[in-house]
């Protein structure tokens, strides 16, 4: 009788322990990013980008057009945030023939659409994306850390776009301070966050 009850106790303990483990395993990890699309990630962590000076010259930055060098400096901060903090190796190149990644500006009537990064294109075996910043004259690009409809920090938006460039989608999980990948723009766009880094790196070991 004593042996039987001991086994019952052991079996019961194992079953309940397993139940607890399954429960914990199945609970979504709210600290990790939840939105992903495998088709958005490059095959290689090393990517070079061409900067289209003529396109960037159309951005009204700090109230003036053209202000190409200053605008490029702000955009490059986004590239640095990604390249310096993750496994991605991003560099600027001037060898821009063929299928390349590009950074430029575009015109869109909708000023609420500040910038975008295209889908990942693959042509002749080469992967590339294009990053666009809206050069509508009512888009007030500045360096003040805000992303309101009246003034818009270019480096903050660039950080977010380089997040898309890496492959991240918009994220809805976590609380303030969790990610620079929210839609719409928030103050968290000011820098890449640890959750962003830990999401990007496994894609580029």
């Amino acid at each position, binding site marked *: 009788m004593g042996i039987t009850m001991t086994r019952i106790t052991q079996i019961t303990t194992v079953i309940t322990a397993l*139940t607890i483990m399954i429960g*914990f395993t199945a609970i979504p990890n709210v600290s990790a990013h939840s939105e992903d699309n495998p088709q958005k990630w490059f095959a290689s962590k090393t990517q070079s980008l061409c900067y289209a000076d003529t*396109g960037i010259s159309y951005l009204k930055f700090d109230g003036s057009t053209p202000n190409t060098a200053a605008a490029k400096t702000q955009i490059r901060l986004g590239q640095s945030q990604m390249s310096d903090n993750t496994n991605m190796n991003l560099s600027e190149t001037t060898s821009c023939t063929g299928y390349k990644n*590009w950074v430029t*500006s575009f015109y869109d009537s*909708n000023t609420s659409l500040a910038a975008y990064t295209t889908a990942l294109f693959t042509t002749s075996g080469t992967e590339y994306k294009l990053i666009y910043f809206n050069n509508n004259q009512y888009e007030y690009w500045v360096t003040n850390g805000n*992303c309101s409809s009246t003034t818009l920090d270019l480096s903050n938006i660039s950080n977010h776009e380089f997040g898309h460039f890496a492959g991240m989608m918009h994220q809805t999980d976590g609380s303030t301070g969790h990610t620079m990948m929210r839609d719409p*723009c928030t103050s968290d766009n000011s820098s890449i966050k640890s959750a962003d880094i830990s999401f990007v790196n496994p894609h580029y070991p």
Partner: protein
Amino acid sequence: MTMNQNNKIFTMLAIFSVAGISILATNSLLTSTENDLSATYIQSKMSKAFPELDGVLDGGDATMLTTNIEDVKSQVQYTIRGTVVNIGKLKEWTDPTPQPDELRKLMGKSVMIPIDIKVTQVKKDKSDLKNDEIITVNVLGHLIENTLYLNPNSPQFEIGEDVVVHISVDPNDIIEKDFKFVQLGEYGKYSIQDGKAFNAKYSHGRDIAKALDETQ
């Protein structure tokens, strides 16, 4: 085995069971909350209007300054409810932004898609739009080879669709004079289904009256 030992066993069993069931129940609750966020309406697909193309795809991922139409209501000239009666052919326009030749090849052609909407209700109007008139709004994109890439967060439409749209007029006259577009893209357009207004933000629907009133 004594009664005391039995009590200990049953107490342990009860504690572990409660803990395990609680965790599973919590997980079930979290999972069901995620599922509740999924769309409960039939989303429009503009590809139906362009069977000759290889596809109509979302052009990428954007930074939106806001997804609240209230934040930009001063820029909205028209808020109407109506029925989509026509989706026009792709119309090429010239983005004046100077691009290097190599880049221009990759960008494809800048195109607009005119959407004709027959007005059934006018809520906000800076002209004298009347019921049964047609108003044309436009969606922008790029045609690369034979695939249409809509600018990110663009609204999609289908012929016969009952919609509420918040429309702005581009003051720059760059694409064309009095160019009309849906303010905030997919967040400024609702599809009316089963007596409710649905869009990317309100996937469970909201009162049509509230959708119409948000630019007042």
